[in-house]
Structures are given as C-alpha cells and as structure tokens.
C-alpha cells in the first residue's frame, strides 16, 4: 500500500509538497486526474496513478496539457471531482481551453495545479503562471507551507463547487520538491457516479449544454463569470489560510505567498526582526480579499512584497492600495519595482535578508572573512567544473554525433532546430553544440518548416529539426502536417527513445502502456508521418556510419519533408537499465591519447562519462562502474583501441 493512502487521520508524515497535493486531492474526493510530465509537477500524477486501482481513480498522462485539461473538464461536467497537473508553461499550452472553460464554468469540483520553476532550474523559460488566473478570471490559491499544501488542495475542490468554476493552485519547486510535516485528514468513502446532464436551457450552467459563450452575447456568460470570482473573493475575506504573524503595529509589513513565506520567516529570524516586521501570508492571491488586505495595509506605512520572479502580487496590492489611499494613507512599497528584490531568478532567504537589512537599517549577520575566503578558494580550485551531459549509453549522444558530422561534411552551413526533452542538451558541448534554435514543445518542427520555405529568398542551407517521441505527439504533429502541405523542405529527425525520458520515463501515445501500467495500443509514429505524406526512414543511432550516411543522403536530396527516425531505447528505460550489451576495454598500447591522429577525441569531444582520461599514463580508460556497455565508443576511436566484447 502506498504511503499516501496508508495513514490514519491525525497521523503526521514528512511529505514532499507534491505528495501533500496528492494526499489533499485524495482527501478531497478526486476521481479523475490528468497531466503532462513537467518538472516540478510530475510526481503528482505518478503517485495518483500508483493508487488509482485502490482508490478507484482514473489517472492519465495526456498527450499535452490542453487535452489533459479537456479530459479533466469532461469529468467535472459529468459531476466528478477532477484535477489537471502541469508545470508553468503547460498552462500556456492549456490556456486556450482554460479561457473558455472559465467562461462555461464547471460542475464537479475542478482544480488546475501549476508547479512553477522560478530560476528555470529545469526549464528553458521562467514564465509566470499566476497571471493566467487573473487573465481568465478564476480564483488563485498559493499554499505557503506544507500542511497548507494538503489542506488547501482539499479545500480547493469545495471552493470550486461553491462557485461552480475551476480553481487554480500554484506551487513552486521549493514547495513541490521540498518536504515538511503534514498531518493527514480522513479519506472519503463512497462511490462517484458520472452522468452528463445537458437537457436544460442553453444558458443554464447547471443543467444545460456547457458552452463558453454565445456569439455576440458576452454579458450572458462573462457577467456570471465575474460574479463567481467576486463570490470567491468574498469567501477569501474570512479564509483561515490567510494569516498574519507579527507585532500589532509593525514597522514594516511583508506581504507574501508560497515558498516566499518560508524565506521571509527565515529572514526575520536571521535579523532578529520579529518585534518590528510582520508577515501577511496570503494563500488566496486572486482575487485579493479587499477588506482583509486593507486591514493589514493600514497597520504601517512601509510594505514589502516578497514573491517569485514577476511583481504580480506587488502590482495587485498596489492597485488596492491606490484605491484605498484616502482611507489608509499613502504607502511606501518595497519589492521588485523598487529594485530591492530581483525580477529574475529564484527568490531565497539571502535576498530577503539583504533587502530587509537595507530597508530597516538592520545590519545583516556577516560571514567571517576567513571562512568566506576559504570557501571561495575551495570552490575555485577544488570543486570540479561539471558540464551538463548525457547519461552513459544515451542514444542522443550517438544521434548528435552523426547529425553534427553529417552537417559538417555536407558543408553548406546546415543547422538543427531543437525542441524540448533530454535532447535539448544538444545545444551544449555534450551534444556537440548542434542545436541552433530552442524554444517550446514542438517549436523545432514549426520553425524548421518555416526555414524550409525560404528558398525563394536565396536560403540554401539544409534545415533539420529534432523532436522526441513524446514531443511528436504533444505538439509536432500539426507542424509536420503544415510543412508537408505547404511543400516546405526539411528533415525531421525523431529521436525515439521509447518514453518521455527527461521527466522520469512516463508513458505517451507511442508507448504500449498508460500511466496506471495498463496495456494500451501504441500509436505508430512512422505510419502517422507517412499518412501525412512525409517520406520516412529509420536508423539505429548506435550505427554511427549508417545514421550519418542516411542523413547526408537526405540532405543531398533536399526536397520536401523527410522524417528520419533514430530508434534506440533510453539507457534508463526498463528494457535497457541494468543490462550491458558489451564489456568495454581500452588497449593502452594502441591508444594515441593526445598525439596527432587523435588528440583525445573520446574524452575531449565524445565525452561519455564512462570513458576517463588518465593524465599520468596519457591514455583513456573505461570506468567500469559508469560504463553501461552500449558499445558505441568502439566506433569513434581512430586506432580501434576501444574494444567491445559481447557481455555474457
């Protein structure tokens, strides 16, 4: 039995934020959960899928966040409680439907969970998901500690049913992936029953058809939508999750939410300011409860807003403050717009300490000079500089080797448009700096299709795009259809490693299993591409010469869209993990090392962590603990010094 369901009401557990969301959703009586893998959100659907059978849930890894939100919405329309989970940029993908869903309203309690990644620790953007709540006019909740993560998630379903609209919960990396103590509530009994009622009148949100809006009749839906949000704000006025901690008359008031609540508490403690600075922790950050906020803004003239990335809360508070100025007085605000806190990167206690100490004039605790010096020296001299790289045995290293070399040999300044996945690392030296554009899911194919139409303007550079098997289904299919139909010329390399690897090897429509481990039909990517009218070829990326030659021939042909599938399972996939195809060994007599004729191509360029440079001997060696025995390096050694022998 999973620990998320094994635990009495009242028992205390150390839970990751994502685990607390799962527990809260289960306590909230969820029936359906969907999502698309995205750090830092992925554990939520994984854990729910793990208890799906026991708790009678339907849990799905959807093809993308838009479809995931639509699937969860169907459950809500049928009277079930549902949840859709994604990372911050997933909300962008889901946003078209979200806009319309917020207008049509929901029935069974529905929650959208967005786990943001301030600082882009595992993203190629630092986007803001909070603004979507304001833009589509739905309530936004941000839990500020771990108990609250669970309690707020559970409560969100009740709130959603109260106002008959979707509620958004926003978490961040340091809530989702950090841990704290959580006391369990009880899990509900009872069976959920799905039925979609639509016989009522057209504009009856409860019993009629579910439509976002009548054409040319904005007020018919938009009015009720805004009324729902006002109702939520009314409920927020007395919501126990909004808390104040500090002196009755603080010198400075911090208004904060989410993980920044914890940073602010740490900062106050570090500076000993608990008698001077109070914290208004808001869990209901849209729409702001006006009177409650007013009551706290009135306590002092100095207000500091602590939040991640953009000054969203800051601007919303300032709007209220401006409106209430005649009642509460003019305030001095400190935050991102004043330059006291940055609008880039993750917030942390040190930044809050620095800002507080300069505003309040309190000396910050200093690091002893000798210690700081020693730490700096250790970092500079002792800590090895580690570049990001692919796992040993990763098919992408082999794929990029061949792609990069094919393009160099073709010698016409060809380039590759990149996409999102482990293979995004192709923009770094570990992928031989092959990628020349990187944006969002599926955008590599879209952009490449665009480049492939520029021949009439004299563009003669061969165009290549890369895309993973999961990315293909998520977003690349429409781009491919467009390119074929528009007669664009480019090569789409599909790096098929049999899973959504970057985020933890989740299933997708090309895999013969679903989130809950049940057998499912696997869609045939090659057949889909052919049906769209593209030429399709398949290679094994571990066959370096064959792969390189195939791509060179395709680039030479240069007309229309060709799909080149490079198929080889991820080194961490179930079919390959822990299994060695070959035992690898380097013959030190044959190894040229740094000499002319090689110059360490295996360790200096190819860069598999399983090959190590022995400085004293001037040769390369295999690190048997790291090498997974894929055998590819044997083909890159000009001397044939790397030997492979079939493993028993």
């Amino acid at each position, binding site marked *: 039995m999973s620990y998320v369901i094994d635990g009495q009401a009242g028992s205390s557990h150390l839970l990751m934020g994502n685990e607390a969301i799962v527990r809260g959703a289960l306590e909230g009586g969820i029936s359906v959960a969907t999502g698309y893998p995205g750090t830092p959100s992925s554990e939520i659907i994984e854990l729910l899928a793990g208890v799906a059978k026991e708790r009678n849930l339907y849990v799905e890894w959807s093809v993308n966040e838009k479809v995931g939100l639509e699937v969860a919405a169907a459950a809500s329309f049928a009277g079930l409680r549902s949840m859709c989970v994604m990372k911050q940029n997933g909300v962008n993908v889901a946003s078209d439907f979200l806009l319309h869903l917020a207008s049509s309203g929901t029935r069974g309690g529905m929650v959208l969970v967005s786990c943001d990644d301030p600082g882009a620790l595992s993203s190629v953007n630092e986007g803001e998901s909070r603004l979507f709540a304001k833009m589509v006019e739905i309530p936004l909740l941000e839990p500020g500690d771990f108990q609250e993560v669970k309690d707020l998630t559970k409560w969100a379903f009740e709130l959603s049913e109260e106002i008959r609209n979707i509620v958004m919960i926003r978490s961040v990396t340091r809530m989702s992936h950090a841990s704290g103590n959580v006391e369990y509530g009880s899990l509900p009994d009872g069976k959920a029953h799905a039925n979609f009622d639509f016989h009522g009148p057209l504009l009856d949100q409860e019993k009629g058809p579910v439509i976002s809006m009548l054409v040319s009749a904005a007020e018919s839906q938009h009015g009720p939508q805004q009324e729902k949000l006002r109702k939520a704000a009314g409920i927020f006025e007395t919501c126990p999750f909004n808390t104040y901690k500090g002196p009755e008359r603080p010198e400075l008031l911090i208004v904060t939410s989410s993980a920044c609540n914890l940073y602010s508490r740490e900062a106050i403690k570090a500076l000993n300011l608990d008698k001077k600075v109070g914290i208004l922790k808001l869990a209901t950050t849209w729409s702001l409860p006006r009177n409650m906020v007013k009551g706290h803004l009135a306590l002092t003239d100095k207000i500091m807003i602590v939040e991640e990335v953009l000054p969203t809360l800051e601007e919303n508070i300032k709007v209220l403050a401006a409106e209430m100025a005649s009642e509460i007085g003019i305030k001095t605000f400190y935050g991102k717009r004043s330059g006291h806190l940055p609008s880039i990167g993750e917030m942390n206690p040190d930044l809050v300490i620095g800002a507080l100490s300069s505003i309040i004039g309190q000396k910050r605790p200093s690091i002893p000079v000798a210690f700081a010096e020693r730490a700096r020296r250790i970092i500079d001299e002792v800590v090895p500089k580690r570049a990001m790289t692919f796992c040993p045995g990763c098919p992408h290293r082999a794929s990029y080797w061949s792609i*990069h*070399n094919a393009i*160099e*040999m*073709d*010698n016409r300044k060809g380039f590759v448009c990149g996409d999102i996945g482990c293979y995004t690392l192709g923009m770094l030296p570990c992928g*031989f700096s092959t990628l020349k554009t990187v944006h969002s899911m599926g955008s590599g194919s879209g952009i490449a299709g665009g480049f492939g139409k520029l021949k009439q303007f004299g563009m003669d550079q061969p165009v290549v795009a890369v895309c993973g098997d999961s990315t293909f289904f998520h977003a690349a299919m429409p781009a491919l259809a467009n390119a074929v139909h528009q007669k664009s010329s480019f090569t789409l390399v599909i790096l098929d490693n049999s899973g959504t690897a970057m985020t933890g090897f989740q299933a997708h429509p090309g895999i013969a299993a679903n989130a809950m481990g049940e057998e499912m039909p696997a869609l045939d990517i090659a057949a889909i591409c052919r049906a769209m009218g593209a030429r399709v070829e398949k290679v094994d990326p571990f066959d370096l010469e064959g792969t390189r030659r195939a791509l*060179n021939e395709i680039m*030479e042909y240069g007309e229309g869209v060709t799909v080149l599938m490079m198929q080889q399972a991820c080194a961490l996939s179930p079919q390959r993990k822990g299994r060695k195809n070959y035992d690898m060994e380097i013959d030190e007599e044959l190894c040229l090392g*740094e000499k*002319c*004729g*090689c*110059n360490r*191509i295996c360790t*200096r*360029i190819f860069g598999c962590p399983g090959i190590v440079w022995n400085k004293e001997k001037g040769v390369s060696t295999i690190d048997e603990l790291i090498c997974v025995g894929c055998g590819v390096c044997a083909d*890159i050694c*000009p001397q044939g010094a790397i030997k492979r022998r079939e493993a028993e």
Partner: protein
Amino acid sequence: MLKKGGPYELLSDVIESDLCIGCGACIDLCPYFKSYRGKTAMLFPCTSSEGKCFAYCPKIEVDLDELSLHYFEAPYNADPLGYYRSIHISKAGREMGGASFQAGGTVSAIMYYALKKGYLDGAVLTDSEGLLPLPCFVTQPEDVLRCSTSKYAAAPTLSALNRAIRDGYGRIGVVATPCQAQAMALMRVKGIEEKEDPNPVHLVVGLFCTWSLDFRALEDFMKERITTESIEKIDIPPPPAEIMKVYLTNGAKLEIPLDEIRELVPESCSYCYDMTAEFSDISVGVLEGRPDMNTLIIRTERGQRLIEEAIDEGYLIVDEIPEDALAHLTWAAGRKKKRALTKARDGGMINTIDEDKRSIVRLRTEILEKILVASQGCE
C-alpha cells in the same frame, strides 16, 4: 624559415582561404578531417598546435628546395618540366590488349604491371560513381582497369593512401595529380612518425594537370543540361580542341566549350605551379594531336627500371617524342608555373617573413625571379 602549424592554421590558411583543392592528404589521418562530395570538412576542433595535416598539405608552407633535394638530390630549378631523366611518348602494350583506355593507357599498364609482378602490394587509384570521383585501394591487377578513365573533378585520393597505411600496408603505388604527388613528397620529407615503414609509398605515377574542377559545381553545371546518371564518359581531348566531350549512355554526345568549363575551376588551381607532377617517379599526360598516345616523363631510377621491364615484357610501348610536342609541353608547363607564381607573389603568399603570415610556397629568390621573367614566346 619554414613555419609549422596545426589543424587550426590549416583551417584558416587553406580551407577557409579557398586554397583547398581536396587532394585528401589531410583526410583520414585522424578523425577530424573528412571529405564529402569534393569538399573538405573539419568535424571537430583539434587543439594541437602542430599536426601532420598541416605538414602534408601541398598548399601551405611547401619548401621546394627541401622536396627537390630529398627527391632528386639537387635544389629546385626553374625548368618548366622539373627534373627528369628522359621524355617519350607511350601507350599500353599487347599484354594489355582488349582493355579500353582514356588515351594511351600508359598509367593503367604501369600499375597493372607493377601489381602483377609484385613490385607493389597495393595501389591507390581513383574510381568514380557518375561524376563523383572515389578514392580506392586495390591489391589485384584486374581492379586497376576499373579505374582507368580520367576524372576531371578534384578527388581526395590520398585519403585512401592514409587508410591503407593505417591498415598496415606498405609497398603502395599511387596515381596522383601534381598536388597529390607534392603532398606525398611532403609526407616522405617530414616523416610519418612512429611507423615501422617510414616510406610505405614505393611508386608515384603523376598525371599532367592544367586545372581540376570543383565536383559540386560540375554536378550542378551538368544537371542543368542532362541527367547526370546518363553520363558514360567525359573526355577533354588534347589541344587544340578546346572542348569537353560528354558521352551519354544512350549513345548521344555533348560538346561543351572549355571556356564554360573553366568557370568551374577551383581558385586553388590558379596558384598551382606544377603541370607535369614534378615530384613523381613517372609522369604521364596526353599527347597533343595523338588521342591514342601518352606523353611519358621518367624522373627517377626506380621509375626507369619499371618502365624498361614493362617494355621488355610487352606491357608498354615507348617511342621518341616529336620536337614540336616537347616544345609545346615545355611552353605550357612554363606558362602555368609563371602565372601561378606571379599571382602568389602579388598576393604576398611567397617567402613570407611575418610571424603570423604563412606562405603557400618557399623557393630561392633567384629561381623565383628566373621563372617570373621567363619569356613566353608565342605558340
């Protein structure tokens, strides 16, 4: 003072300066330089400050005296034809009967004979697939005949030599263009380090060359006129024809004025001062006015011995070269040498002194002067 360099200098001074002729000398010495469809590419940066790639390249830092002293035990002279023992006309003998050749079949006969008699263990030749020349390495005499037609696009033939040496072959014969022959002379002089056999090339048969063609440009040019799969053979007959003949598989023939073809000549060829492959054992070319014969220059003792034995056993027929043919050959070779060295001198690419400026060639000033002022009387 001969300057040294590595792959970085090779890239900047030769490849990116439009001087690379794609001879293949730097290809397959290591994993970094590759040739594809006539173009040389550096796959990854090699950080060596000195390398064989730079040392063997015939288009950078070539000291002609150094090569000449090594090959002929005499410094470089201003003779348009280089050093030689004798010049003749020739063609394949009766033992080669039945085979089809471009002109006289002299090169095929020599290589066939050398392999058959065991003077060589292998031969580096140039095969082709349509217009695309393909370096190849053969060990059987019959395979020589497969490569018997002339290739007009520049070929990275020496890459096959590098691969053969790496695979442990010695006693190799190579049919080479003048630039390729010069690269092999550089290999011999500068050394192939740490190999058991410091001189695996036992025979160099050089080909006369006025210019070569860029493969990709040639392919594009032909594609505008015909489907290139239908090309059976290409021939540029000796002067005064001034045309390129393209024979198609359907029996048709295309004649293209050489002036149009000259547009496809790589920039690198305009700096080439060697028409008759001066650094070979034997040099072979066409014979003006006689499409069934070759001009044959014997330069070294080894070359002479081989020719004499081939004649004795009926593989080669050799005759006296007519005076006017020799005069015209000398004139043409002199003109090419003068033109190329004038251009190089005017471009400041000879005998440079600056730290960071490398020369394509170094030779004694008095020899250079002699060549530059040589009178080019009319035909």
